């Protein structure tokens, strides 16, 4: 077993366990902290795929910016009655779990069908994940989508301010 495989399996186990904890914890702040753990595990997996830029962005933007927003809102809402939100055992949940398990098995079956599995080429993969390579593609082929992204973010900022404002006048 190479170091790469060992790291992948450690990060994969960490990612799955933290994902389960995000979904099952009752307190939203604990869920948010486990989601940050999950983001760090994913960043590690991105590094095993030689995607350095995405790994750094994952931690900076997701674990940094977006999760701060979440934690801030959880603290702002000041939820006192968490016990009222306790969701117990219902048959709906059993049905949802069964359906989810079925879909998961189907997906795994499709992935395991051997259809020309490509093998990772170390030099090419290392060249793809750098800031230079991604920047080159982003500012040539994807220049227009990149510019439209700024419009999306402006709309999101305006929408968030309008929605969260105290009184619409």
């Amino acid at each position: 077993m190479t170091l790469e495989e060992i790291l992948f399996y450690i990060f994969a186990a960490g990612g799955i366990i933290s994902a389960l904890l995000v979904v099952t914890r009752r307190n939203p702040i604990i869920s948010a902290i486990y989601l940050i753990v999950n983001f760090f595990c994913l960043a590690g997996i991105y590094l095993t795929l030689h995607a350095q830029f995405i790994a750094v962005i994952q931690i900076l933007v997701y674990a940094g910016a977006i999760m701060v927003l979440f934690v801030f809102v959880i603290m702002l809402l000041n939820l006192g009655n968490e016990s009222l939100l306790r969701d117990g055992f219902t048959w709906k949940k059993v049905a949802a779990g069964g359906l989810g398990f079925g879909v998961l098995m189907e997906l795994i079956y499709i992935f395991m069908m051997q259809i020309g599995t490509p093998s990772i080429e170390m030099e090419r993969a290392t060249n793809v994940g750098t800031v230079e390579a991604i920047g080159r593609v982003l500012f040539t082929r994807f220049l227009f989508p990149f510019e439209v992204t700024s419009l999306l973010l402006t709309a999101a900022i305006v929408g968030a301010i309008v929605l969260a404002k105290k009184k619409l006048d």
Partner: protein
Amino acid sequence: MVPLQAYLILSAIMFIIGAMGVVTRRNAIIVFLSIELMLNSVNLTLVAFSAFFGDATGQVLVFFVMTLAAAEAAVGLAIVIALFRRKQTINLDEINIMKW
């Protein structure tokens, strides 16, 4: 050497966990966190394919998905705050004014 299937299966497991969270939980914040989980599992698929095929397009798409996630989190959390201000709850079962 980790095969491509391992990355895809890990991504599928995390996506299904996130989908289960969206379907079964009633706390609006945890539903949002589950949506972030699902977006991230899709990002993992894109990065895995990008690395295995040696094409940077997948990683550029991840960049756009992250932008979208930021916009979605900002607007969604603003909606949660507005709802909480009106109804003093974030229990999704009690927010049913548009339910037919």
